[in-house]
């Protein structure tokens, strides 16, 4: 039976069919739905959201050493966090099949950078698989697990936004549980990389790579599609699909088991066509290798390496390759006249009041990654830097130590705090910092679609559990100034912030209110503006609330959108905003 599955659903299905019993990860677009779908196969599979990707990677690695087939999921930047265990798991090797499912985000739809995960496979000297659609996402995950177990190597399944979030038809199969017995077998020369044992491991990694290369040569995941021999295209991942539409007559070498490279197959293909063109998204990973083999090929000079590919971009590539002028495109009409529609903090978002209040002070705000990154936009405009998860706290400390004349305030979310903010807070406490830290605790990992985390009291398996309190961690670090506030109350928010700004010691503000989207209910009654009492002062504009429409002349609250947070009511100097009569 065939079903229409997203790439992420297909990866989860493949994991279940292949007998995976442990799945871990940290949410990150575009990877999140892999684990959200895998957990639907409980009790066959144990799944967890770990506090961060490094922990998730290590949990799955532990499961593998005990003999279980396991996967770990993350977005591309998450693999940076998990890079430490990745590099050495390659040495100590795995027992049960182990695959890191990593989703890249070409075009940076929901990411802070555009790094290409394929480089990590070469870096860690492990096999790499690149599906082009959902069927391959399932098949390659299963193939990766099989090869991982057979060669005792971790493997990477590299997806991209368009593979993970596109749906296509997938043939369903049955689950085949592993026959391996669970039970760790002590073997220090294999699992303990102290130098005396680590050096032999280092050699084994190279030997394994040679054997994997031989396998890649004859893998069905790498195939030649002979058509016209004038042009031969070497490609992988979603780029294969676009290239098929743009060069339907050309011959293709499609790489699915793309590292270690199948050198003989590449030579055979290049020898059978007049010209070779490499079509790949992001880095020139394949192209550089093809050139290193001494094969003349075209690539980056025709196919862009920045931002995601598309049929349109490849049509331009083709035109340039053939020395034709670019294909005629219908000009975009009216584009100048259309108001932009950027993403914004939702109506009644608990973060809005914090950013509004921060906006009244001349401070530097080092921010972080989550919905609250939107606090960087006008009119809130109160986030001055973003680096990576957790850096909101650590960079505040660094600026302060550098002697930044203004007060520095670090802003992070709750899930981000558990991810990698705790160590930064510890650093501030330990190294006599004075920064003020605000944790925007909306009781969920909101941006990626409301996943649980160590503070929510609920696991991915749906069980009630211990909940870590952020303020308790602050106390455990030795902080003496900790304030838990309700961000819908502007007065107490202002007071806490004023207190934090005048403090000579580190100060932790926990801004606590659950995400209304997660709660699926409004914060309060919808508000309305009494037009006759409105002074037209425009103060509400500073909130950037999407529920208030009509500009500064005749503001009106959209009752469908208003979540009743009351911030506009608290700001209104004329008392013209009140609970709407007759309710919603």
């Amino acid at each position, binding site marked *: 039976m065939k079903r229409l599955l997203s790439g992420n659903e297909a990866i989860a299905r493949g994991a279940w069919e292949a007998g995976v019993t442990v799945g871990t990860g940290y949410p990150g677009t575009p990877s999140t739905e892999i684990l959200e779908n895998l957990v639907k196969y409980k009790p066959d599979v144990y799944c967890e959201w770990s506090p961060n990707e490094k922990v998730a990677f290590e949990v799955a690695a532990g499961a593998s050493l005990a003999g279980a087939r396991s996967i770990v999921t993350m977005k591309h930047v998450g693999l940076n966090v998990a890079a430490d265990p990745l590099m050495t798991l390659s040495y100590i090797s795995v027992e049960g099949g182990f695959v890191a499912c990593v989703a890249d985000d070409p075009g940076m739809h929901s990411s802070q950078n555009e790094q290409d995960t394929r480089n990590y496979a070469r870096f860690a000297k492990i096999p790499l698989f690149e599906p082009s659609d959902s069927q391959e996402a399932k098949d390659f995950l299963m193939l990766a697990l099989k090869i991982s177990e057979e060669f005792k190597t971790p493997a990477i399944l590299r997806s991209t936004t*368009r593979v993970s979030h*596109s749906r*296509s038809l997938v043939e369903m199969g049955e689950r085949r549980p592993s026959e391996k017995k669970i039970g760790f077998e002590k073997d220090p020369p294999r699992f303990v990389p102290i130098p005396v044992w680590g050096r032999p491991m280092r050699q084994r990694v190279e030997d394994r790579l040679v054997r994997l290369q031989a396998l890649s040569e004859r893998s069905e995941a790498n195939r030649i599609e002979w058509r016209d021999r004038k042009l031969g295209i070497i490609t992988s991942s979603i780029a294969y699909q676009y290239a098929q539409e743009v060069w*339907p007559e050309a011959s293709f070498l499609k790489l699915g088991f793309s590292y270690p490279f199948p050198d003989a197959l590449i030579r055979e293909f290049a020898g059978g066509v007049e010209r070779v063109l490499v079509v790949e998204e992001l880095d020139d990973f394949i192209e550089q290798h093809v050139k290193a083999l001494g094969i003349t090929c075209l690539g980056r000079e025709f196919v862009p390496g920045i931002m995601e590919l598309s*049929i349109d971009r490849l049509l331009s590539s083709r035109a340039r390759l053939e020395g034709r002028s670019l294909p005629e495109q219908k000009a975009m*009409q009216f584009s100048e*006249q259309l108001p932009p529609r*950027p*993403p914004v903090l939702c109506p009644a978002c608990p973060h809005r009041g914090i950013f509004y209040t921060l906006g009244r002070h001349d401070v530097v705000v080092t921010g972080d990654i989550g919905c609250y990154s939107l606090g960087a936009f006008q009119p809130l405009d109160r986030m001055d830097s973003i680096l990576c998860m957790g850096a909101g706290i650590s960079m505040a400390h660094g600026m302060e130590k550098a002697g930044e004349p203004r007060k520095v305030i670090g802003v992070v979310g709750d899930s981000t705090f558990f991810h990698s903010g705790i160590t930064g807070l510890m650093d501030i406490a330990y190294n006599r910092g004075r920064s003020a830290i605000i944790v925007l605790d909306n009781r969920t990992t909101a941006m*990626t679609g409301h996943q649980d985390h160590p503070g929510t009291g609920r696991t991915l398996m749906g069980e009630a559990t211990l909940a870590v309190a952020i303020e308790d961690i602050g106390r455990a670090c030795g902080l003496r100034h900790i304030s838990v506030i309700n961000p819908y109350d502007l007065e107490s928010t202002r007071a806490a912030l004023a207190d934090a700004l005048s403090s000579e010691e580190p100060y932790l503000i926990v801004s606590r209110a659950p995400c209304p989207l997660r709660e699926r209910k409004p914060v309060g009654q919808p508000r309305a503006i009494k037009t006759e009492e409105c002074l037209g002062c425009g103060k509400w504009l500073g909130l950037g609330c999407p529920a208030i429409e009509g500009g500064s002349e005749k503001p009106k609250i959209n009752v469908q959108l208003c979540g009743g947070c009351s911030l506009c009511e608290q700001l209104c100097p004329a008392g013209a905003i009140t609970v709407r009569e007759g309710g919603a």
Partner: protein
Amino acid sequence: MMDNETQSIVLVGVGGQGILLASEILAQAAMQSGYEVKTNEVHGMAQRGGSVMAQIRYGRRVHSPLVARNTAHVLGALEQVEALRYADYLRPEGLAVVSRQSIMPVTVSSGAATYPANVEEMLRLAFPRLVYVDATKLASELGDNRAANIILLGAISRGLDLALDSWQKAIHLCVREKFQDLNLRAFALGRDIA
């Protein structure tokens, strides 16, 4: 260069309007008719009140899940400015189905940009084949304004070669039990007005 048999549909709107459900039903209807289907949708940051686009392609053999510019057979929009924003996806003779709804982006409510006053005129210029409906109002009259997406889908169905039976099966498969009747009626209404 493109396979002429492959049908491409682009659905646009604003986060929360139900574009993704509409896309799922359309894909399911194409599947029910025996076609290969690929779809793509937007997740993550782009969804927080921003523009949302779903793309559906079906035919005997479909490669790219993404629709190239100037090639879509049908463009469906639940918001007027969004229809114009993605107008260049539609092929010149393609069908546009646009709901008469304006949702003010925060750039407009904050005064940084203006919502075009002559949006209807612009739509008529941009789309020679335009079905212009007030899906939200019609949905309210049916009893639930959230069904605007299904009314839109009903109107779109006129521009595609999928059997009514496939659409109905798709709605059964994609919509929760208690909303099925409402959605079937919404679909029929949309199909009638187009």
